[in-house]
């Protein structure tokens, strides 16, 4: 049920998705990505509730970096990507499989296949820090989409994040 008191539309959408998603997770088990999407990238953000204000519908907590970015971007890239936030405490099934130990992790899937991104950080599987810039994130998603459509399993991100701690 979409939440009525949401301040931000994107947040609203995200939260609603979060709840549906989580429900599926808890009900259906591990294979949440079985709904094959023909047309788009599936972006899954593994995180925690208290970071996201995911479950706190009544409280107006300011959204933190990554969440905010994802919320505002969701509307713009909805034609070719969809974002699903997942709470790893509710759905711990993927923690070992994907090594989800960071506060927030974003992974990309296309037609049920995991797409790797060369970000320069050494870990090509996911983005495990809070990406601040909206446009950067959109660029990454677009690159993933283009590469995945051509059948590539690994795409090269437009920006190099090897020095991410020193921006």
């Amino acid at each position: 049920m979409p939440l009525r008191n949401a301040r931000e539309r994107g947040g609203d959408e995200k939260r609603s998705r979060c709840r549906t998603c989580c429900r599926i997770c808890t009900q259906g088990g591990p294979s949440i990505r079985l709904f094959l999407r023909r047309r788009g990238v599936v972006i899954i953000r593994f995180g925690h509730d208290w970071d996201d204000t995911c479950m706190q519908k009544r409280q107006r907590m300011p959204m933190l970096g990554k969440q905010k970015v994802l919320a505002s971007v969701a509307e713009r890239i909805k034609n070719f990507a969809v974002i699903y936030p997942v709470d790893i405490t509710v759905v711990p099934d993927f923690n070992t499989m994907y090594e989800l130990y960071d506060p927030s992790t974003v992974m990309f899937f296309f037609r049920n296949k995991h797409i790797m991104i060369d970000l320069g950080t050494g870990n090509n599987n996911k983005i495990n820090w809070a990406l601040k810039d909206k446009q950067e994130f959109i660029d990454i998603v677009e690159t993933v989409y283009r590469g995945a459509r051509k059948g590539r399993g690994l795409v090269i991100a437009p920006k190099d994040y090897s020095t991410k701690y020193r921006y």
Partner: protein
Amino acid sequence: MATLADSFLADLDELSDNDADLIEEDDVDAGNMEEDVDGDMADVETLNYDDLDCVSKLQKTQRYSDIMQKVEDALEKGSDISNQGLVLEDDPEYQLIVDCNALSVDIENEIIIIHNFIRDKYRLKFPELESLVHHPIDYARVVKKIGNEMDLTLVDLEGFLPSAIIMVVSVTASTTSGKPLPEEVLQKTIDACDRALALDAAKKKVLDFVESRMGYIAPNLSAIVGSAVAAKLMGTAGGLSALAKMPACNVQLLGAKKKNLAGFSTATSQFRVGYIEQTEVFQTTPPALRMRACRLLAAKSTLAARVDSTRGDPSGNTGRALREEICKKIEKWQEPPPAKQPKPLPVPDSEPKKKRGGRRLRKMKERYALTDMRKLANRMQFGVPEESSLGDGLGEGYGMLGQAGNGKLRVSVGQSKLAAKVAKKFKEKNYGSSGATSGLTSSLAFTPVQGIELTNPQAHAHQLGSGTQSTYFSETGTFSKIKPT
């Protein structure tokens, strides 16, 4: 504005009364002219020397006094609604109104004539006044007030003119080149002023009368612009049919005043608006939309006038409907634009890039195309090792170049268009420092007669720049196409 009316009047055929009057006046004039030889000259002379009466005869005519009498009676009677049953043309009031319209135009013309008369006489006294005060009635009032006075500080012009103009007039009067008029001329001038003012008053009466009957004559037009403005428009045009025959752009300009600048900026002057400016609809539109509103009003009121002239809708409903339409349109103009929706991004690669084609692109691509030599170098024969630039597999490989079995007898360096273009540019620009030639040119030339010849490299440069050298058969140019044999 009377001159405008003049030109329209020339097209109209319903003013038979006017023609009769003119003929009358001409006859009287002819009587005077028999004394003089040249008719035209006589007119000018009569204007200058004779009485006002020869110039302005309207007030003396029977027609004028008849109509004025009727108008006054009608005004006293008040509005009379009972005659709606009659067919319009038979109604004596309607006829009176038609006459009034014609008369008001005549009065305007008369006023112009009198104004000219006054001006001519007063020029001796105060020549600059005519360029400062344009309006004939204002001019007449001012002349009457000033009289023969040389010192304008004693004259109080408050109320006659805007204060800025009064200031300019006073300043100009102090430096004027005019001299006081003789008593006789002054008297004539004052008489003429009085006459002009009387005519103006008469015109006002006529207009008031027409205005009071406006709702009956032209209900649709009055529904749009209001009865006062409708009366003025009709009066200036010279009748309802005359108004109906005008194009809307002319209706817009009926009553447009010539602005007196006197050093003021043109930024604030409202341009190209006549009586329409006084309508309620116009006054209530915001200034930014005023020009558009004016055009719209003129157009619709012309339509209404046309309906009225044929008595198509005596109830005035068409007019009211048109007014509604106008108001709606003006409201729509004032609506804010629709809010901008944030658009989601399109799917990447969904819109293919527009690729161009054509000869130009082909030629451009040819410059960077793969040459035969390079094609051969890219391929290798099976089982046959290729040669390389540094030998033993080091350096760049030559592929099928130079090997047997590549099917070509001789592969020469093709015409490299890119290189040719660059070389040509280089030659023409003559890169290098201060007169020294480019490193690519050689000063040696092998000629059949003398063998080796040293050419002066400067000679070429001058030739190219002189402009007499034909570039069609250019010596530095290349062939445009070489077919591979």
